[in-house]
């Protein structure tokens, strides 16, 4: 890993939707947007589980996911390879995600529709620059 997760903190502000790819146990791909990826610590991120059920179902069968996040100030895109580690239904990470979900619901007038079921925590097993200036420069 050439950059640390904390170097990418702007990618986790929710300014630009992220992308998550997962696969079922029998190898069927799935891809969707995520409103936000949450930075937990130097090695982990969390995703809110509301009702993206196919993604969640895939991750119960196959714990690997690939996420693309974009720095909103530079439009450099980063690829995070993730491995599911645990689910939290209370505690500080859950509370932080719940506040975000409620804020988005209030902004969109969809209170009661968007409800946090759990905060799913993933270990970042690889991180690389995926697109943007110098993305293909091995020294970048």
């Amino acid at each position, binding site marked *: 890993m050439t950059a640390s997760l904390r170097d990418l903190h702007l990618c986790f502000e929710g300014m630009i939707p992220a992308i998550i*790819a997962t696969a079922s146990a029998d*190898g069927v*791909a799935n*891809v969707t947007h995520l409103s936000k990826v949450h930075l937990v610590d130097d090695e982990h991120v969390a995703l809110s589980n509301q009702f993206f059920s196919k993604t969640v179902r895939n991750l119960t069968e196959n714990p690997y996911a690939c996420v693309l996040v974009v720095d909103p100030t530079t439009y450099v895109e980063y690829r995070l390879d993730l491995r599911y580690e645990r689910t939290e239904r209370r505690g500080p990470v859950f509370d932080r995600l719940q506040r975000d979900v409620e804020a988005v619901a209030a902004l969109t007038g969809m209170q009661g529709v968007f409800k946090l079921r759990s905060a799913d925590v993933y270990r970042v097993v690889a991180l690389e620059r995926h697109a943007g200036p110098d993305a293909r420069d091995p020294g970048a």
Partner: protein
Amino acid sequence: MEIDDELAAFLQCEGSVIVATVGADGVPSASRAWGLRVLPDRGHVRVQLDAADAPAVADVDAGRSVAVTVTDVFSLRSVQVKGHASTTTRPTAADVLHGDRYRAGFLANIVEVEQVPEDLVLRLVPSDFVVFDMPIAEVFDQTPGPTAGAPLGATP
């Protein structure tokens, strides 16, 4: 499966096009696509990928599962199509024209929605592309909300 005119038009709406592929080890890869065209039989899509996106290109070339989601950046309506692609090839002249037109439209839409300078968004755009054709095997509503993941039907 053959999709209807409305869905074909939506898939070509110059929205965000994102792709998932799967490696031989079952590990998924996420990518952006830079053009999508519904072929005249309305049973296949032709998708443009970053030629330098080695994992995605290799996964497509291996004939494994591919998922493509198109999102209208104004309404957030999203549709996902799935299938197994054939190998990637170089774009034809028609593909180049279509890709240029798609990217100009998509970037204009992003600039309007996000209120960001176009030269900033342009940094995401690759310089070289490959294309692949994918038979549409399944279609799903992927619009954010409780109905995300619901199957959509074929043309009667």
